[in-house]
């Protein structure tokens, strides 16, 4: 359970870093960026289920699907800006744009999930749908991710309003309209 909680803290770190870039650098997420954030947050579903109900192959499959989808979305954004002379979208961190880091993160998640699936012993006796008690470390991890998802709900609503999100957002749509 500790490894699942650590995974949730890692996901929270990624989501928080994305927020830091948004708030501190003023770089609002584009639609593809939002899709990658969503897939990072969906990665958390597997660990939360593992913490609550014990490890199951289906819980790892949930995270694996999110990681594969997220890697695909990140790869598309990489390919959109891969031609020589293309400045890319947004700023770079240590030479790589955020979507490149996102792809690396999703690839690492796929490898780590595969490693976790090597250990069959964790699934012995895993047949109950009754929730188990969670310690403070796991509880903190779950609520941290939920809080970051809630922040993303507010942020996305402010950015896009009730219409289509702009391809290159430069301001928060709802705040622009407020008096």
């Amino acid at each position, binding site marked *: 359970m500790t490894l699942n909680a650590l995974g949730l803290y890692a996901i929270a770190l990624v989501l928080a870093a994305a927020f830091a870039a948004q708030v501190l650098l003023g770089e609002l997420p584009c*639609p*593809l960026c*939002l*899709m990658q954030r*969503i*897939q990072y*947050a*969906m990665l*958390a*579903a597997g660990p*939360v*289920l593992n913490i*609550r*109900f014990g490890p199951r192959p*289906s819980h790892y499959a*949930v995270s694996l*699907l*999110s990681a594969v*989808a997220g890697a695909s*979305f990140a790869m*598309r954004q990489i*390919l*959109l800006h*891969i*031609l020589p002379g293309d400045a890319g979208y947004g700023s770079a961190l240590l030479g790589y744009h955020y979507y490149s880091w996102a792809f690396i993160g999703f690839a690492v998640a796929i490898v780590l999930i595969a490693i976790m699936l090597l250990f069959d012993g964790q699934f012995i006796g895993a047949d109950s*749908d*009754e*929730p188990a008690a969670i310690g403070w470390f796991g509880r903190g991890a*779950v609520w941290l*991710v*939920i809080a970051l*998802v*809630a922040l*993303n*709900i507010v942020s*996305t*609503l402010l950015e*896009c*309003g*009730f*219409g*289509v*999100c702009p391809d290159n957002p430069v301001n928060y749509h709802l705040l622009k309209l407020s008096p």
Partner: protein
Amino acid sequence: MEFTALFLGLAAVLLVAYFGRRRLALVLFAVTFIASVAIYLHHATDRLQLSF
């Protein structure tokens, strides 16, 4: 609005999973995941300027 809805769906998945409804959480995840892929395919219409 669709991205806000996806985040809302995801929040529902995590809350349902945490408060102890495993099968419902898995069903909600499936719905949210399929919706996210559909929204991605809807938006990913720009042709990639690649030459191999």
